[in-house]
């Protein structure tokens, strides 16, 4: 009886430790895979951003200024002078932020030049 119980205990030890090790080893593999995927995605995003930067830099700057000036002029329906152009980080912008930015732009030197 005693040795039967000990034998049963050894079986539980074997099954239990194999079970715990297997489950946590599975997590190790999954997290390792997720980490690798994350590195791949970050690299891809970085490459994409770098490519976009190269495209913008390689554009004809005068053409870009002309296009943006025309677009601003049409949007604000008035004669304007562009003093500075800078890139705003591309993020989804709410309509309220856009409206606020347009109000801010139209409240500056634009009135003076009309």
């Amino acid at each position: 009886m005693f040795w039967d119980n000990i034998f049963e205990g050894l079986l539980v030890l074997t099954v239990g430790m194999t079970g715990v090790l297997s489950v946590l080893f599975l997590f190790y593999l999954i997290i390792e895979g997720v980490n690798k995927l994350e590195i791949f995605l970050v690299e891809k995003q970085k490459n994409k951003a770098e490519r976009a930067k190269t495209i913008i830099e390689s554009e004809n700057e005068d053409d870009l200024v002309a296009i943006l000036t025309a677009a601003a002029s049409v949007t604000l329906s008035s004669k304007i002078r562009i003093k500075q152009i800078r890139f705003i980080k591309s993020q989804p912008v709410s309509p309220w932020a856009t409206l606020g930015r347009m109000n801010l732009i139209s409240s500056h030197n634009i009135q003076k030049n009309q």
Partner: protein
Amino acid sequence: MFEHLMRFVEQMGFWSIGYPQLIMFAISGILMYLAIVKGFEPLLLLPISFGAILANLPNSGLLVAPVIEMINGEPVFHEAGGLYYWISKGIKLEIFPPLIFLGIGAMTDFGPLLSNPKTFLLGAAAQLGVFAAFIFAVALGFTFKEAASIGIIGGADGPTAIYLTSKLAPHLLGPIAVAAYSYMALVPLIQPPIMKLLTTDTERKVVMEPPKKVSKRVKILFPIIVMVFSILVVPPTAPLIAMLMGGNLLRESGVVERLAKMASNELINIVTFFLGTAVGITMAAESFLRLQTIFIIILGVIAFGMSTVGGVLMGKIMYRLTGGKVNPLIGSAGVSAVPMAARVSHNVGLEYNKHNYLLMHAMGPNVAGVIGSAIAAGILLAIFK
């Protein structure tokens, strides 16, 4: 008048107090001393010792069951039942330990584990004590269910020990909870000699590479992945793992700060008090003062020691396999006892190299140990429930 006075005097508890109760008051006093003066796990030992005093005050009626009669299909309460009859339902109905896990999840940063997922294996190996103590308990004549409940002390995780014991051997809840929390507080005394015995000077001096940064996306995916796979592989572990990972998701999502704060502050504080006192109230003299309790206390040390051995040995294997990049001392942190076990690894490492900061490396196996002990409990439940 005299009759009323006699009745009043007769119902006093003094007449029912005997030596067993006095011994239990002394034990409660020692636990309270350890909690208040020595600062040993005061969050749990203080409520447990308070509950133990309550449990041994005669005629308090705190655990009296309600008297309910069904009249026309409706329950009518003749006696409402004692306060702790109802509060203890939090353990019996498996509510308190999972809620504690929700709070632990909301407080735990799994970043160190995710930056070095290999340390999952250390958390797994440190469950050796759970199953080794099981064999010793069986050898001492405990039933399989009792032995499983005693073995889980080696997981060094109080809520898991209470959860498993309440399901497999509720009559041993008091001694097992006291042993689990006492030994968790004694980790700085139990672990270092074993760690030093099993490692060489060169191994102890290994300086590990700084942990890599983990992205928010991985931190959010982690609790979902662990929950899904744990419950699929070991379904009985669902209440603990689901709450642990749910709490962590609240934390890492970053969009429900209020809920995360609630889980890691108010909720866990309230539940800790009720859980502690509800465990303490099971420590009535007639159920606690037995030879079994002494065996449980001894088996608890064996469980803790063997878990430390398992973690350190796995650390040594990883040291060999990685060409000396892993310090085996972090293996001992694979027993849960967060963050005490990680601090012990760090402090022992500092003794041999004053510039070796192992704390963050040890936190990986430490939090893996929390998951490991819940999985071990799930396996024992699957086998014996």
